[in-house]
């Protein structure tokens, strides 16, 4: 591991200052992505800024009456376990709790933070191996996954340069529920929809998100959710637990008088960023829930997919996963 200087701070401004002013500085929260990648020399840092003492670990839930815009605020340092087990998150946003609990292991969830989860890196095996080229790790060096071992890679949002999956479960549920991230940096604060925070790989897979130098994720904000009654996170993987998704679907429906009035479908394990299947959502509006309808939504959710040699199975698997998640959301 490359030598680095370690420092910590209890002050957000100070952290932003240090992050912006030191060359090759990196924040460390839970460490479950960063220590892993530092040890593989995939990431090198000259300076680590430990942000675990910053006062941004709160989880706040708001009533619609007193706060019409914001339903919940989750601090970037809230641990994944604490979010998943929070009584009101379970009550108002069960999709988030289910998605988190389907990921990693209890030990890792105890360590992992919300901000770190948003920022986690791909599990592409070539990315993690410095002996081989990788456009994301070394821009311009090539992508051995295209034409190589790509069973776990993406079929949506890919480019000629990179087909790596964004591996988060939590973020799939978050984009389904229109989460926003609050960023704080040298130029002040700004809010971005999480789904737009992530960039498609295009010609620059090394640029993964909108974060500017010195910016820190402070919190995740959620609007009030009408979906608590009818939502489901379904994750399909090679083994039953402690495994990344081959395909996952976060589905949420609002149903009034037997008709679907609002619908959300987000996909994980198949795309280069947490993916909203907007056309499939539209198809559901105004309809009565039925198996046939949900099967159609599954079909539409994967339109435009570009499978590789070894991951074509994900096309059919995604259709079925979406259908099953929607059925589960209406209790069948």
């Amino acid at each position, binding site marked *: *591991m490359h030598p680095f200087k370690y420092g910590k701070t209890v002050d957000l401004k100070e952290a932003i200052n240090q992050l912006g002013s030191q060359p090759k500085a990196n924040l*460390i929260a839970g*460490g479950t992505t960063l*220590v892993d990648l530092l040890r593989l020399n995939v990431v090198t840092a000259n300076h680590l800024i430990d942000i*675990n003492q910053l006062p941004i670990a709160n989880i706040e839930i708001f009533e619609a009456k007193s706060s019409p815009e914001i339903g919940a605020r989750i601090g970037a340092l809230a641990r994944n376990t604490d979010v998943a087990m929070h009584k009101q998150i379970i009550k108002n946003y069960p999709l988030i709790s289910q998605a988190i609990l389907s990921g990693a*292991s209890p*030990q890792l969830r105890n*360590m992992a933070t919300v901000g770190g989860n948003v920022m986690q890196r791909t599990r592409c095996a070539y990315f993690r191996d410095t002996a081989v080229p990788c456009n994301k790790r070394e821009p311009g060096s090539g992508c051995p996954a295209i034409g190589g071992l790509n069973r776990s890679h993406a079929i949506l949002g890919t480019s000629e340069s990179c087909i790596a999956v964004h591996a988060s479960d939590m973020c799939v549920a978050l984009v389904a529920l229109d989460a926003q991230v609050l960023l704080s940096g040298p130029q002040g604060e700004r809010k971005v929809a999480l789904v737009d925070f992530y960039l498609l790989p295009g010609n620059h897979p090394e640029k993964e998100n909108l974060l500017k130098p010195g910016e820190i994720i402070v919190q995740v904000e959620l609007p009030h959710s009408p979906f608590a009654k009818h939502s489901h996170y379904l994750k399909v993987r090679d083994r039953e637990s402690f495994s990344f998704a081959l395909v996952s679907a976060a589905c949420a429906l609002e149903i009034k008088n037997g008709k679907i009035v609002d619908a959300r479908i987000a996909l994980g394990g198949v795309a280069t960023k947490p993916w909203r299947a907007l056309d499939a959502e539209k198809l559901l509006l105004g309809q009565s829930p039925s198996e046939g309808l949900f099967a159609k939504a599954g079909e539409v959710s994967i339109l435009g997919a570009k499978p590789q040699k070894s991951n074509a199975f994900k096309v059919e698997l995604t259709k079925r996963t979406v259908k099953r998640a929607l059925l589960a959301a209406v209790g069948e």
Partner: protein
Amino acid sequence: MTYKISRRRFGQLAIATSALAALYEYNFAKSNIQALAKQSPAWQGGNIPKLTKVNVNFQVNGTKQAVEVDSRMSLLDCLREKLKLTGSKKGCDHGQCGACTVMVNGRRINSCLTFACMHEGDEITTIEGLAKDGNLHPMQEAFIAHDGFQCGYCTPGQIMSAVALLSETCGKQDSDVAECMSGNICRCAAYPNIVAAIQEVRKGKVNASL
């Protein structure tokens, strides 16, 4: 002429050969370690460059410890190499196996994925800290009673997770226990016996917490 080697001579030869082999291995290991040390001063123990040196104070199994570590030293390596608490094991060093599971401030974590220097003021419990007054923790007893291991390499991590599980939310069924224990891999597949041991302690639930 018959070529005869006396028993004594044979013994001397054997010792000389194995000594040579040992010396060779020693030199090989030494040069390896030196190469690693160049690359990674965390290996040098006492001789840490200023840039990466951090002093940290924490409690391990109820005892205050003040250690000087390389900033890159994992909590796991610190426990094993600095404090000689070798119960916690290194299986993968990447968060994938759970052999390094310890408790920090009452919660189980993978000690391989955190740096020792990040734990100023923390209370750490390792497998060595479970027994009280010479008596094994009920979970340790149950693992023995149910044969919850074969080679034993994953066992300290399994037991730390199992003890942590007692104060977490976990369903009643065996399948719930399996899910809550999914962060601990056992190459010997002692899983059924591990689940049985945990279920016994949970049902009894006598003095089973930390």
